[in-house]
């Protein structure tokens, strides 16, 4: 697998099929955006194991309201960007690369495995890091373990159904 297959991996955040540029001048912007995100994850309490339990037990609307309104806001923004044909500040045409569904096994199986981990840790990847910032330092171990999980996936990739 080379760079060309990266756009398939949404989490990698490569929005166009072209070789992404490093653009060091933009890095402070990403740092500030990340700080805002960590701040919001804390104030929204999305990073809390208790909130995740409340969600999976259907005992509060809160998490559904947050995720639902986040999707709606993102969808409207995306539609507006596409309609206006906007370019990014970096000068590229904005596009989210299409994903191929294939058999769908990768998404259902991988998604279910992640879901199990989401409920056990009470945190998805972003919140795990925000929790470390919040002083739940034992989550450093969860990060190391998540890296091991990602590595084992990479090692087994050819053997797994996708």
């Amino acid at each position, binding site marked *: 697998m080379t760079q060309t297959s990266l756009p398939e991996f949404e989490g990698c955040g490569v929005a166009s099929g072209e070789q992404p540029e490093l653009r060091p001048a933009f890095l402070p912007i990403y740092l500030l955006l990340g700080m805002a995100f960590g701040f919001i994850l804390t104030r929204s309490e999305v990073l809390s194991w208790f909130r995740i339990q409340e969600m999976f037990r259907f005992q509060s609307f809160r998490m559904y309201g947050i995720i639902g309104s986040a999707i709606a806001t*993102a969808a409207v923004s995306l539609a507006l960007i596409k309609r206006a044909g906007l370019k990014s500040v970096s000068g590229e045409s904005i596009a989210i690369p*299409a994903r191929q569904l294939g058999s769908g096994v990768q998404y259902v199986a*991988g998604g279910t495995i992640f879901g199990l981990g989401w409920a056990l840790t009470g945190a998805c990847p972003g919140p795990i890091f925000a929790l*470390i910032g919040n002083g*739940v330092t034992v989550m450093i171990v969860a990060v190391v373990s998540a890296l091991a*999980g990602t590595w084992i996936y990479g090692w087994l990739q050819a053997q797994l159904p996708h």
Partner: protein
Amino acid sequence: MTAWFNREWPWYVAGPLIGLFVPALLLTGNKVFGISGNLRHLCSAIVPGKVEFFRYDWRRAGLWNLVFLAGVLIGGFLASHLGTSHAINISPETMTTLSKLGIHDFTGVAPHELFTWQALLTLRGFISVVVGGFLVGFGTAYAAGCTSGHAISGLANFQLPSLFAVLGFFAGGLAATYFILPLVIGRL
């Protein structure tokens, strides 16, 4: 700082703000919002080995996202230090359910019975942190995305693969909540 800034934010403030990260990242550098790719970038940077999945230029593909991730950690630190610390105000039903399972300390952002260094040495703490963390890393790599990449970026773009992934997230989360957690918290 005003009181609202330091307390928990209502869903209708927090949700739209989270959603705005999708256009913000696209408009800045044509980047797709998604956190879990960072786990892959970190593997690629630290221990790529001979694994094809990690043999790519992680700086070009993911340095921006790793910087974003560092920001998330700093943002969490700032929020916890600027705010007034308070217990998470979960619903009374959830509190009752969790008390029955064996969670009695509701003071932190995550239960101290499971998420402290001391608790890591207990089987239930180990399963929550180490097993849970492993499944998060394996699952997000397999599904090629997590809550941010699939649930928010993907669904907002009406992508069918992301819908499949999100249904998986909930199937797994419900299974762990109703079948695994009672054993983990209650008996171990």
